[in-house]
């Protein structure tokens, strides 16, 4: 069992998310940075979907009552175990009674804490992903994030050999990322100038960004197409509201929206975007859907991701 001493700004249980409930308005949830999340599970030989804790901006502290093995990936946070410094992006042993502490994020936004075997949390509609807005998932099943005093259980397992993620696979969150845009949705209805602007100008991530959307500020994008009847919104969809400042829809997005969309961010790059701190510059570049799909396939294969529709055969039931 692990007890939360200090959750920091926000710490919440996430697995890979809910699939099959969008037609009821229930969103996917899941880790904002799938890349970092999947590495944490892989370092511990966990199933790709094993539940972890997503810690936003660090400042997290917890105590363990048994021996176990953990890993922390994602945002650059100073990591200590009873005051002794540990490295991120590698697994480490924890002894009963020890305290794990994360400092505030110096690079990136979201850190992932995984335990070997995964945290044991009762799933709600096939997943224990915390979606606060939908009042679903998480430790108590009601969408609330973790708070001090919460106790989370896990199965103790045999300890693994120590493993770490090679430097080549660790992103540098401080570098300006170049994010792929797959043209789609209303792309053809945007004027050429807007399509070019989005892919040739710098944008800045604003402080209003959250798990629903990453809000950008920069040169406004014009749209002169027709008004839209509300339609499905994908994770990564680039929505352009009337003020022309794009919003990248993220994992807790609303399932339907009426704003025009330029397309969808390459899922492979989305985690990188989720790690951008407010004020950080991002750049976009067009990518062919076919290429992005190949990347996504390789990414899922590497981490042994196998997605299923949790609602069963009848998606409308």
């Amino acid at each position, binding site marked *: 069992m692990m007890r939360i001493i200090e959750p920091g700004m926000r710490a919440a249980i996430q697995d890979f998310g809910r*699939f*099959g*409930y*969008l*037609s*009821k*308005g*229930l969103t996917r949830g899941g880790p904002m940075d799938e890349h970092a999340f999947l590495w944490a599970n892989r370092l511990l030989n966990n199933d790709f979907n094993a539940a972890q804790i997503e810690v936003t901006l660090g400042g997290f502290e917890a105590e363990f009552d048994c021996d176990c093995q953990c890993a922390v990936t994602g945002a650059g946070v100073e990591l200590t175990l009873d005051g002794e410094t540990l490295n991120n992006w590698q697994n480490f042993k924890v002894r009963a009674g020890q305290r794990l502490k994360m400092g505030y994020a110096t690079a990136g936004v979201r850190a992932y804490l995984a335990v070997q075997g995964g945290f044991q949390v009762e799933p*709600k*509609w096939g997943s224990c992903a915390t979606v606060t*807005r*939908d*009042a*679903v998932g998480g430790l108590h*099943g*009601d*969408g609330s994030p973790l708070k001090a005093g919460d106790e989370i259980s896990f199965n103790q397992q045999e300890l693994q050999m120590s493993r770490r993620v090679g430097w080549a696979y660790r992103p540098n969150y401080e570098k300006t990322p170049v994010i792929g845009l*797959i*043209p*789609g*949705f209303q792309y053809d209805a945007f004027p050429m100038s807007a399509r070019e602007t989005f892919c040739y100008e710098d944008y800045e991530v604003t402080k209003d960004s959250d798990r629903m959307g990453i809000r950008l500020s920069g040169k406004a994008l014009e749209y002169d197409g027709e008004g839209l*009847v*509300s*339609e*499905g*919104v*994908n*994770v*990564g*969809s680039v929505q352009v509201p009337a003020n022309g400042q794009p919003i990248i829809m993220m994992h807790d997005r*609303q*399932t*339907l929206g009426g704003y025009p969309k330029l*397309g*969808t*961010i*390459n*899922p*492979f790059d989305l985690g990188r975007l989720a790690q951008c701190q407010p004020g950080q510059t991002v750049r976009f570049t067009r990518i062919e*859907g*076919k290429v*992005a*799909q190949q*990347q*996504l*396939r390789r990414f*899922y*294969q590497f981490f042994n*991701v*196998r*997605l*299923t*529709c949790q*609602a069963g*055969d*009848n*998606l*409308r*039931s």
Partner: protein
Amino acid sequence: MTNSASKASNFPKLVSAGADAVIVYLGEGISVSVNQQVLAAVKAVEEQLSDVVLDLVPSYNSLMVYYDVLRTDEPEIRERLRKTLSDLTSDDQELIGKHHRIPVYYDESVGPDLARIAETNNCSVDDVIKAHTEQTYRVYAMGFAPGFAYLGEVNEKIRTPRLDNPRKRITAGSVAIAESQTAVYPSSSPGGWNIIGRTSTQLYDPSSGTISPLNVGDEVEFYSVSKEQFVDDGGDTETLS
């Protein structure tokens, strides 16, 4: 090919919705016939593509289809969708949705926009209630939040644009109007629709087995109940302003 089919030859139209999804447009604008096509498409996709489909988002005139990139790719799913959707029939008996009756306590204490809607439309509050309860509405889409059903279409007499300044918090169960649409807020949330009353019926119950009793294609009727009845049924009388 029938006349209506050749007229609608632009549809179904398939457009990329990212590396793991395509969106199918089945027509333009808001109409029962197009929305019925969407339903027929949902049924056909569930029946014929369930081996690769992960999730579906039906709406007024479109259907977004999420697929498993490990079991198919975009050219293949487009081809299969085209085949599946080429012979859609929308007059299928099974596509007639369920009928729901929802009790509403129409009162200014829980419906702060009731009087204004009456005033701007030159009628009495009773006329607004009558117009809202006389109509049978169709669930055109579900989304925005869990259990939030977009119902249409509202009698022209009481159509009212969204508020300029959305309220920060609307009580769960609030019954609302925006232009030609009406809806119940299933959970407490911010919102810019005009609030005319409140229901004791729970439209999103995270603790139950089903997320919402409503589905796209269902019919909804509202009926007026007294404060006593509303309270008896467990309604929340918290005043909204």
